């Protein structure tokens, strides 16, 4: 382990957090609740998604507790169904989808492109209110009986066979969808129309490219989820027959509409995380990202191809054999751009000056765990093997590897990386490195046994299982406990750092990017005057030249 670090903090005896910054500019609750400042909205989102993450995490804890024993003895099976359904809904719609875009994307896209705010600040605030309304409705659903259909609302179960709060949950997801649409819409307009002079497309940080691709998915995919939910609601309340075989309807139609969104949704979730990884891997290798153009185009390719593969979630549901063939082949295609990114990041590391600060630890975790998760996705995309592995714990392990081992680690990498910029304070390095390692160990112990469980045949969404699966389930639950500790620690030390952390200064990581050339925390208007971009992205030589004539701006 290298003892080198690239952290460069100002002299702590004289350094102060700048007096004038976006946090101190205005005071009072209304100045936060009615703000148009993208940075304040990002902080509002950060607090909200953390809240929902821990609710979803508590539900996960309940799942793992139940699965300690083969019998359904902790809770009734119906209750277990409700628990995993709400775990999925909260984690996907209220944590993963908004995680990086609504927090780090909102905060940094305008700064990275040299703009003073997003294009539509009021829509940005509306997006947060919609998210909160949807979240409160989802919590209400939980408290008044929950919903037990699984987050996938599969028909005809959700339309004809359950008496739970399908409708209310559907409305909550519908509203959350619009929150997502407005965020994506805002990003696309901003990135097209508000780049500073000299900021051409190919000088943008790859973080921006990743969010651009994810935003396209948000805008084009989410409305289809909306109509699918509307149809389920109509079917439940009026019995119209659209998904009802007795009236001539087809339940599979729901799945087509649902997965048309929900597959691009997984790319909505992962692309922003990949954007974070591009930034951290460059900074902590002191090297430009290898193959910038390839990484940029691969983000867009993932977005485009992501629209062509949705029926790989439906291989056993009754689609035609020819559809299976086509969608399976296309799924092979969509794996390629993701792999291109991993290769390019690996080549970025090659001959770089690597240091192991916390964001880099999470980044390494991402690269390993996302690769494993992604490769298992190829097994699942092969329709032959999918027939055996689908609806088992193999699927559960696959998506947790990519989403938790991948996306959540990328989110934590990003939060740690940009924490000094957002708050003006550094987090404590030793405990954060410990938390990262604990998370990594806990994660592997929780989810790797689930791959084995899946291939052995343990079905997903079952509260009870054959006794021979118990030992692996016990490992998994043990890992979950460790994982919980690993996630709790950041909340504690990051909060601690707000008051006691070291003063960070403008650019503690000596990173490139326009956001690092301003004070920490930034001014409300980001830049006193719009900057001109005159160098390429990840240009460390330009950065060296800047340091020679650096003037620190303090408010």
């Amino acid at each position: 382990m290298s003892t080198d670090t690239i952290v460069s903090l100002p002299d702590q005896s004289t350094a102060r957090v700048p007096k004038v910054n976006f946090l101190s500019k205005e005071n009072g609750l209304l100045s936060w609740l009615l703000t148009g400042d993208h940075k304040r909205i990002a902080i509002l989102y950060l607090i909200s998604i953390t809240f929902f993450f821990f609710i979803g995490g508590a539900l996960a804890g309940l799942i793992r507790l139940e699965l300690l024993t083969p019998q359904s003895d902790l809770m009734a099976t119906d209750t277990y169904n409700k628990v995993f359904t709400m775990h999925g809904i909260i984690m996907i719609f209220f944590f993963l989808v908004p995680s990086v875009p609504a927090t780090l994307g909102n905060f940094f896209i305008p700064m990275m492109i040299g703009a003073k705010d997003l294009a539509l600040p009021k829509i940005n605030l509306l997006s947060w209110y919609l998210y909160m309304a949807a979240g409160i409705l989802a919590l209400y659903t939980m408290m008044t009986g929950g919903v037990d259909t699984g987050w996938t609302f599969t028909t005809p179960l959700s339309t004809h066979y359950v008496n739970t709060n399908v409708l209310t949950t559907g409305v909550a997801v519908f509203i959350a969808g619009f929150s997502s649409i407005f965020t994506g819409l805002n990003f696309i307009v901003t990135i097209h129309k508000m780049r500073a002079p000299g900021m051409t497309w190919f000088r943008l940080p790859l973080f921006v490219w990743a969010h651009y691709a994810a935003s396209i998915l948000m805008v084009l995919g989410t409305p289809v989820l909306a109509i699918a939910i509307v149809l389920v609601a109509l079917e439940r309340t009026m019995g119209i027959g659209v998904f009802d075989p007795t009236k001539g309807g087809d339940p599979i139609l729901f799945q087509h509409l649902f997965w048309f969104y929900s597959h691009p949704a997984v790319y909505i979730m992962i692309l922003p995380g990949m954007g974070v990884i591009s930034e951290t891997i460059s900074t902590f290798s002191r090297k430009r990202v290898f193959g910038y153009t390839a990484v940029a185009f691969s983000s867009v390719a993932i977005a485009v191809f992501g629209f062509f593969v949705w029926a790989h979630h439906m291989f056993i549901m009754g689609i035609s054999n020819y559809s299976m063939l086509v969608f399976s082949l296309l799924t092979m295609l969509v794996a390629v751009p993701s792999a291109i990114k991993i290769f390019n990041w690996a080549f970025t590391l090659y001959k770089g000056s690597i240091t192991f600060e916390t964001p880099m630890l999470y980044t390494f975790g991402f690269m390993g765990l996302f690769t494993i998760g992604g490769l298992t996705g190829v097994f699942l995309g092969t329709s032959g093997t999918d027939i055996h592995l689908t609806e088992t714990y193999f699927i559960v392990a696959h998506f947790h590897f990519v989403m938790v081992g991948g996306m959540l680690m990328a989110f934590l990498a990003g939060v740690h990386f940009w924490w000094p910029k957002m708050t003006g304070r550094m987090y404590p390095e030793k405990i954060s490195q410990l938390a990262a390692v604990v998370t990594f160990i806990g994660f592997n112990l929780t989810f790797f046994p689930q791959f084995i469980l899946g291939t052995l045949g343990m079905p997903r969404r079952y509260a009870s299982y054959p006794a021979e699966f118990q030992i692996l389930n016990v490992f998994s639950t043990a890992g979950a406990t460790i994982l919980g500790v690993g996630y709790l620690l950041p909340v504690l030390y990051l909060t601690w750092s707000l008051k006691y952390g070291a003063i960070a200064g403008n650019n503690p990581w000596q990173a490139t990017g326009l956001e690092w050339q301003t004070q920490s925390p930034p001014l409300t208007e980001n830049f006193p005057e719009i900057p001109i971009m005159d160098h390429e992205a990840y240009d460390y030589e330009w950065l060296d030249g800047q340091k020679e004539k650096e003037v620190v701006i303090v408010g």
Partner: protein
Amino acid sequence: MSNVPDKVDHDLPEQHEREHHIVSPKIYLTILIALLVGTAVTVWASYVNLGIFNPVVALAIACTKATLVVLYFMHVKYGTKLTKLTVGAGIFTFLILVGMTLADYFTRAWGRW
């Protein structure tokens, strides 16, 4: 500013005069008449037995009318490349949704290999 590209970036409107082409009412009137004629034709055609081509004709006329509205009433013909690309992207994604979903339904009857 030697590193700032000289090429005008059409996404940044402050770098060039925004093209504000005002479409003349004459064009609007022409399009209106075309749309009204199209409506009449499509109603008339539904009463004629064209066999398998009835839906084809109806959709073709509808698509033509829609194209006229998009190009002229919505000013896309006089708009930026970005606008045209945006419209194209929307239509493309719509066609993917409809086309690939329908492909599943049409091929179900093909049975086993």
